[in-house]
């Protein structure tokens, strides 16, 4: 099914190290940029929630040594493209921001374990914030193709930072932007919104990413209402392949704390087991 640059004695790579041409790399608002790369399989086979590990170019005095993990914002097999939505925060993402069409970016992926939709779920609630909006976006099409109804609560500081709303709407989701600027993103108010959806029977599962406070909220609501969920987590990564054990986080499994690798066991984990911090 997948082909790779490293095809070797019949070996088929599930993930590959690839030098992909940049199609575009434009700002979407004051904080985020949208990077589009030309790609084939296995990159375009990335599932919702899987990530790529990007070898960000040096720029100015920045010489990022490690790769940087980025969620697949979109993997489009037909168009032969993979896309990322990223926030410029430090050395690596500053380097990403310098890419122009025609440059090549070395990526490794797809990596990690993505979101899973249980066939028993008829509707889900997606709650994201910040970078989490990029990570959750592919759920829009995944759910649509599985006939699952989506309510997307998209939290941001201000209206221009509410990303992926059109994409969720296009996939048939009902979208609630909630904002710091008008107070609607307050956890208490978001909690009421989610509880309302639960009462309406529109929450067979919760999906969240991008905020510790929202994780804590969804965990609590899930526990109260007996609703399962998934959360995509972040942690600094070196290898991205489960080899170095730098990306561990603590999880709570049957009352015990266990340590798991975000890159390998995740980045998507059961909401029940995730520990907010």
């Amino acid at each position: 099914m997948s082909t790779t640059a490293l095809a070797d004695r019949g070996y088929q790579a599930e993930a590959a190290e690839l030098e992909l041409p940049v199609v575009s790399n434009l700002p979407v608002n004051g904080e985020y940029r949208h990077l589009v790369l030309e790609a084939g399989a296995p990159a375009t086979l990335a599932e919702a929630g899987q990530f790529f590990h990007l070898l960000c170019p040096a720029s100015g005095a920045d010489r990022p040594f490690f790769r940087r993990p980025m969620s697949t914002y979109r993997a489009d097999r037909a168009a032969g493209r993979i896309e990322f939505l990223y926030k410029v925060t430090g050395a690596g993402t500053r380097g990403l921001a310098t890419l122009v069409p025609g440059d090549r970016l070395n990526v490794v992926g797809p990596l990690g374990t993505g979101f899973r939709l249980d066939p028993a779920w008829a509707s889900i609630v997606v709650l994201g914030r910040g970078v989490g909006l990029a990570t959750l976006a592919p759920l829009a099409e995944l759910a649509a193709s599985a006939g699952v109804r989506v309510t997307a609560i998209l939290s941001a500081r201000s209206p221009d930072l509410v990303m992926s709303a059109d994409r969720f709407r296009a996939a048939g989701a009902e979208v609630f932007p909630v904002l710091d600027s008008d107070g609607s993103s307050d956890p208490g108010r978001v909690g009421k919104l989610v509880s309302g959806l639960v009462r309406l029977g529109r929450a067979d599962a919760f999906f969240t990413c991008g905020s510790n406070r929202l994780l804590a909220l969804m965990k609590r609501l899930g526990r109260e209402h007996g609703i399962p969920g998934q959360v995509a987590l972040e942690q600094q990564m070196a290898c991205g392949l489960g080899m170095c054990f730098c990306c561990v986080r603590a999880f709570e499994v049957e009352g015990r704390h266990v340590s798991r690798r975000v890159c390998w066991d995740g980045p998507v984990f059961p909401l029940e087991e995730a520990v907010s911090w």
Partner: protein
Amino acid sequence: MVDLSVRIGGLTLANPVMPASGTFAEGLARVIPLDRLGAFVTKTIMREPRAGNPVPRVAEAGDGMLNSIGIPSKGVAPFLAETVPFYRGYGPPLVVSISAHSADEFAVLAREVTVEGVAAIEANISCPNIEADGRAFAMEPGTTAAVVERLRAATPLPLWAKLTPNTGDVAAVARAAEAAGADAVVVANTILAMSINVESFRPTLGNVMGGLSGPAVKPIILRMVYQCARAVGIPVIGCGGISTADDAVEYLLAGASAVQVGTASFIHPTALTSVIDGLEGFCARRGIDRVADLVGAVAEGPVAEGPAAEVAW
């Protein structure tokens, strides 16, 4: 056709390139065909399950990295039940890295991992020795000899001693390992180092200090390999900052019989296979039939005179 095979004690490897302990796991099979490697070397295990160190466990450090992963270990039983069988599905020999805080515990663990499917034991003697005031065994020839002797008696498997660079005289330690019965020395583990974030005033590692690896350490570890190769008769396996085939050639010339690639696999998961391809290409280009002919071939006499000296510099 270049003959890439090398012998490390009783073991013949199809090529001299293998991963470094702690930088390799089953996950790499997603990206490269594991059958191409000269050997597998697993993450160090200890007898008892352990949690490892607080995060952040890694930091960038110029042209290298710091890590304070520690040895988070599931213990021996899951290792024997899951890890060993996984690698049995592949051709290259499996080298199991073990560690312990005392010579006794080392010997017990060596016996426990002497099972079918394990081709050699790499003793990571760079960890603190509880009997010697927390100093790593491999910091001194005496403690090195003591633990290697016990290991030698505990297992018939080929025994590699992995040395620490955090010592004043690595060659003396290598000699001690050889005399105590090691079949090879691996030179070396990471160099103790640290960095501090000048904005937050905090160490970049949760553990304050950690090990430096990657290209930054190459000239230091290369020197140690050169010193050890001249000091011992057993093979030296070079490990430190190897990212390219040229780096591997440099280590072979300095006297390494094989090399381990660590940090480079984090940056390029295809590093191991591209080092192997590049080694073959280098030998072919230079008309070298056997990669083993490179071992220790560094040229040391005065520079030859000749037409090249015509230029002004």
